[in-house]
């Protein structure tokens, strides 16, 4: 039964490769979005830290 499902009526290679490629692409889309956000957030944090140190240096 399960083997019959996996065989996809002889089209297994085409059907499963399409689903595999799609799953891979969705994971890449999601993770790259997350990574870009994290990168910009870290950059913003570094900028504020640098600003704080600068202004602290000026007032001291």
């Amino acid at each position, binding site marked *: 039964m399960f083997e019959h*499902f996996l065989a*996809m*009526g*002889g*089209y297994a290679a*085409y*059907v499963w*490769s*399409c*689903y595999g*490629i*799609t799953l891979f*692409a*969705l994971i*890449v*889309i*999601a993770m*790259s*979005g*997350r990574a*870009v*956000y994290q*990168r*910009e*957030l*870290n*950059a*913003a*944090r*570094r*900028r*504020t*830290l*640098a*600003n704080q140190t600068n202004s602290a240096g000026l007032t001291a």
Partner: protein
Amino acid sequence: MWTWFHKLASPPYAYDVAGKCQPWFWWPSLILMAVSAYGGLVLAPPDYQQKDAFRIIYVHAPSAWMSLFVYSTMAIAAGVGLIWRIKLAHAFAAACAPIGVWFTGLALITGSVWGKPMWGTWWAWDPRLTSELILLFLYLGYLSLRSSFEDISRADRASAVLAVVGVVNVPIIHYSVIWWNSLHQGPSVTKTGAPTIDPSMLWPLFCMIVAFMLFFAAVMCDRLRAEILKRERSAKWLMKEVAVAHERDGVPNV
């Protein structure tokens, strides 16, 4: 309603809303994807002509739909940015493009893998396939045009013009199978007239499209927030956000 739109156009508010909405897009999207994959792979009967190979439709058609939807969204946002000079609209358009590239590539690749057993070829210079390939080049052109400017606002304006002009390709792709004698099959679902596909095959397709739209919205939350952070270099509200992040994750080593 309009005041809400005005509020949404302010970067701090949009940043906040995007962060809060994201989980509400993620979970329904993932659940709906799993349900539609089960419906499409297990519950739907094999097609009388294409047999089980037709099941590729459940990943191919939603990707192709998204490639057009994302482009239209991007072009509208770019147009709004150009006409009303709303910075957030440009940020939104810029955030769309990398996602659109992936969906277009996915539509082309899954279409090609579907074409091999059904048409006997991976690729044909057919109107539908060629216009979809042009869409991929439009996205890539948009991204490379943006990266050729150092100044963000100049990049915004130049790339927005390209996005708006390129939108003529969207109806061409959509109607290509009707206007020309195409190898590609005609639409299964049209606005007028009953769908030419059985309900047991249709509902997983419809659910998968909704799942992909929610997925796009979830990823857009991250990408839009990143664009806002990139643009709002020294805004006061950002300092507050950053302070919260410091508290949560600890102060990074500079």
